[in-house]
């Protein structure tokens, strides 16, 4: 029986994370999901948002973009466009990106641009959410 989970977060440009963890919380398309070791094999979409995982007693947060997750009893693989560790999030830049994206949403856009802007907005919001949580706690 596996006692820990191997959490992998991969993006087209890098493997953002590959570590053994005890618990993972992630934003599945149907709602937040919490996963412990020995979960039943499962595949679903993930929305842009926040991944939280516990290692021993420490909880780490990461911001991820939209993508997919494949869950195995001893392994979780997240396939996404973006993944940034909490410490690497530049709040100002994310805030700027959010403002930029929101400003563009009010312009006249075609569908394709709209989708791109919305993805950018979701990404920056995810980063901000992760960053700001730390200030509160």
């Amino acid at each position, binding site marked *: 029986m596996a006692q820990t989970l191997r959490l992998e977060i991969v993006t087209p440009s890098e493997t953002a994370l590959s570590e053994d963890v005890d618990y993972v919380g992630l934003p599945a398309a149907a709602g937040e999901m919490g996963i412990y070791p020995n979960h039943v094999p499962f595949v679903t979409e993930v929305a842009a948002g926040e991944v939280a995982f516990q290692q021993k007693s420490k909880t780490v947060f990461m911001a991820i973009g939209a993508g*997919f997750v494949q869950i195995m009893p001893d392994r979780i693989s997240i396939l996404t466009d973006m993944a940034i560790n909490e410490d690497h999030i530049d709040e100002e830049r994310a805030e700027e990106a959010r403002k930029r994206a929101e400003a563009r949403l009010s312009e006249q856009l075609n569908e394709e641009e709209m989708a791109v802007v919305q993805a950018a907005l979701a990404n920056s919001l995810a980063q901000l959410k992760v960053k700001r949580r730390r200030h509160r706690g």
Partner: protein
Amino acid sequence: MPSTRDLRRRIKSIRNTSQITKAMQMVAAAKMRKAQTAALTGRPYTDLLNQMLGNLQNDVSEFSHPLMEERPVKKSALLIVSTDKGLCGPLNTNLLREILPYDRDNTVFLAAGRKGAQFLHRTRRNLKAEFTFKDSPDFVEARGISRFLQDSFLSGEVDKVEVLYTNFVSTIRQEPKVRQLLPILELEKLDPDLVDKDSESDAGDAASSSQDATEFLYEPDAAGVLGSLLPHYLNYVVFQVLLEAKASEHSSRMVAMKNATDNAKQLIKDLTLEYNKVRQAAITSELLEITTAAMAMEN
């Protein structure tokens, strides 16, 4: 007979040119390595995507998706992935030659990279959209292009989408290649290896086959997940095409610039020889004149 001054000037100018080509060669070499590493770092992503697709295809037997719908082809689209800059040997010439057989009335042309767009303008073809992509292609850029293609296909504007790009075979060999993007006929395994295509690696296949036995649960259901995975798959294919094109461009430029540098060196050598000959001839004839003059005085 050119004068020594002309020769000196020519040698100097060729030397300057060779310095530039040498610098460009080094830059191209560095950029090529970067493009190759970019493709390699994307490997885990490719493997995982392949694995998910493989599992899904096992679990979904009857599946249809708007992106897979085959229609009678009335109008097709061709995306041409070329370079922005020239000086990369026969790369663009070979690539653009492939455009000629396409029917210009029933084909919508799209260009990524300036050279392709210029060619389409020059030959008065129907250029619908032009995309740009950076030296180290970004996934976001690929996603933009891919979205555009998917929208054109889904809206019924075009019934087939193909992409024309330069396939990176090895550092010294690049070939123009046409690949059908839409409708998706079959999900081929993505090949992340930019480095060497001649030796097929089967490590990835072994990894995925060991997991075939696992039964997955899907949410909402297998078909739904597969449906939303398809656009991602396409985005990634476009991203790979961009990477291939860039790697080809840089390696082709590197080879072209290396040839240019070698040629310049040979020219300098020849001209220096010529220059020394002319100089020696001038000295000899001067000496001859002096001695003749001296002898004339003695008499």
